[in-house]
């Protein structure tokens, strides 16, 4: 019974999608084929691609869209991740009886040494990714995710070693504050939130694009600590 109703619902959704796609061409490729893209200046993508390099000085257009043009979305999104980290910590706060250090089953020596060798390298790579977000593919989110995979490695390879929950919490608060305050400084100086108030610098240089690298590094630290906290709590190592 339940299966039949579910399948009917799915069929309705599928029919809706098919009708919608057949009625009107969706997407940039369809627009290009019909020649709609030529005349209009309304299309967001066109506008950003043409203006981003000049306006923000960031070579990676996606970075300038994420951090600058749609910066409020990104602020909301790090808030969502912050909520998730808080929520996971809240829900799993009743501690499992933690085994004393000696009784934790250790990974083999090779895995242990390998993890300890790789962890700093992973962190270095992550820092590279989020510091170069405005120049090359990558940025705060990707770098943060890479850091969190480094944490996963620690939890797997070096059992019993927790990353300090307090330090993570302090990092995420501080980097979130850096993001908000940078935005508010833009509001105070130029009358609109997240305004790029620093000089643009030379394109393709590491120190260019004004506030974009600052915000992206703050996002990187924030995402690292939040994802790291989520992973740690779920792995049962947090608190």
């Amino acid at each position: 019974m339940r299966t039949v109703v579910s399948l009917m619902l799915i069929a309705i959704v599928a029919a809706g999608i098919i009708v919608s796609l057949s009625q009107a061409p969706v997407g940039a490729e369809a627009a290009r084929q019909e020649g709609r893209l030529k005349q209009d200046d309304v299309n967001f993508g066109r506008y950003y691609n043409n203006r981003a390099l000049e306006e923000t000085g960031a070579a990676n257009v996606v970075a300038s869209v994420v951090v600058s043009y749609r910066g409020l979305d990104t602020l909301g999104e790090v808030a969502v991740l912050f909520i998730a980290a808080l929520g996971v910590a809240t829900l799993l706060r009743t501690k499992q009886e933690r085994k004393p250090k000696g009784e934790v089953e250790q990974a083999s020596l090779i895995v242990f040494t390998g993890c300890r060798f790789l962890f700093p390298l992973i962190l270095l790579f992550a820092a590279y990714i989020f510091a170069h977000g405005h120049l090359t593919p990558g940025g705060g989110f990707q770098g943060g995710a890479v850091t969190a995979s480094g944490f996963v490695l620690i939890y797997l390879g070096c059992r019993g070693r927790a990353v300090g929950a307090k330090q993570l919490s302090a990092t995420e608060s501080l980097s979130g504050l850096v993001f908000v305050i940078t935005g508010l400084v833009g509001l105070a100086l130029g009358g609109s939130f997240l305004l790029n108030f620093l000089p643009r610098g030379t394109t393709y240089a590491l120190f260019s694009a004004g506030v974009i690298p600052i915000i992206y590094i703050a996002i990187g630290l924030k995402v690292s600590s939040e994802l790291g906290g989520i992973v740690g709590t779920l792995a049962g190592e947090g608190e």
Partner: protein
Amino acid sequence: MVSPIILIAVPLGLAFLTTLLGLLSEKLPKYIPAVAMAFNLVVSIRLLPHALQAPIVAKTVGLSPPFSIHLVAGPLGMMLSVLISLVGLVIAAYAIGYMGREARSRYHALYLLLLTGATGVVLTGDLFNLFVFFEILCISSYALVGYRGDKPGIESAAKYLIQGAVGSSLALVGIGFLYGLFGTLSMADIARNITSVSPMAVFISMAFLVTGFGVEAAVFPLNAWLPDAHSSAPSSISAILSGIAIKAGIYAVARVVFTVYGADAILVFVAVVGLVTLLVGEMSAFRQKNIKRLLAYSSIGQMGLIVFALGLASARGVEGALFLVVSHAFAKALLFLSTGYMIYRTGSMEISSLHGMGRRMPVSSLCFTIAAFSLIGLPPFIGFPGKFMIISAALAKADTLFTVLIAIALFGTVVEGAYFFRIVQGLYFKAVPEDAGANLGEDVEAPLSALVPICVLAVAIVAVGVCPYVLTRYLGAAAADLLDRAAYIRHVLGV
């Protein structure tokens, strides 16, 4: 004049600060939500007169709309922002005492983020930004519903989370379709172009968006999560979920249907859906023995009435709906807050255990009664003008269909009156049950930290009920903000 963006940015920053302060001190974090909401209240009230003259369009990154995310603080948005910060402030003050023992800095940060999400939803002028703030609102409510980690809380959090997550994915598909069709995300810009594409394609994307946002708005087939979530959460959270969170959902649906799509054709359907929601909610509430579940079902019923009034699509109907949004936010918050300590003292959520409370907790019971009468729609409380406006709007349609529908809606109100009178009768005229309350001493009235917020809400209910003009003078502009698409587009895009 300050930019309305600080209504979002400052609470967000304070929420980030809350956990940092939580590392330093046990006491400080619990005052932060109240401080942030007081700040928001002051700023919103300062901005309201400006917004009434013309919507304040706040741009980000120095680009004018539609090319960057913009906030549109129109009369409706600012009115709801005042409402959110007022109710948020009252409940935050209540929670300082009520959640005192179990709340840690995480609770306060999550609570503040929930309110920030709601404020963002009502202020933003960008469709994807609406989605992001909507997610902030939803995800913090999932976490808060399960905050205590007890059996019912976790179970209802699981249900709520599954339905909410699927709903928001569907909404995102709708946004994807719209972006694919128009290449823009600004609601005003989409509204301007919406007629240039085949109606069928547009209709499908609207179906996705309305289904997605409708999960939070608790319209009929999508509201299975609500009674569980609202009844299992801590009372202060139930109050904010019933008072504010579902209103933000309704706002999102209304904004999409009225402003973005201008879909007049489906409004009869909307009215009927609202009516079904009303009947389902009130009928289920009538059967409940658990006080918090009863209040949750009653919320569904009231949301049904609001949706019905929006479906009338006349200026007067929308004004009535907005009045009801305000009155329900006050009354339902007050109901949950005043029952909070009754439940805490008796340790039971059964209605029968509340018998005789009128003598033992006189102030809480009096406030409960005021709020209940207001929900039923008795004068001189705030619920009366709202229901009156909706009835007169439905009759003004001069359409047999709407006359029949409003008659059915009135039947729902009668049912509502029946169960609330039953409870009030129990509060005052029934003997204290033998088993419940043996452990209660003489002085069981709620502490002062809870009574002050409760009384503030009760006074507001009576004051606005006696003198509805303080609210109605804003409603005309707010209803026009929702219904007049051309003006909205003109204000935002300046064309």
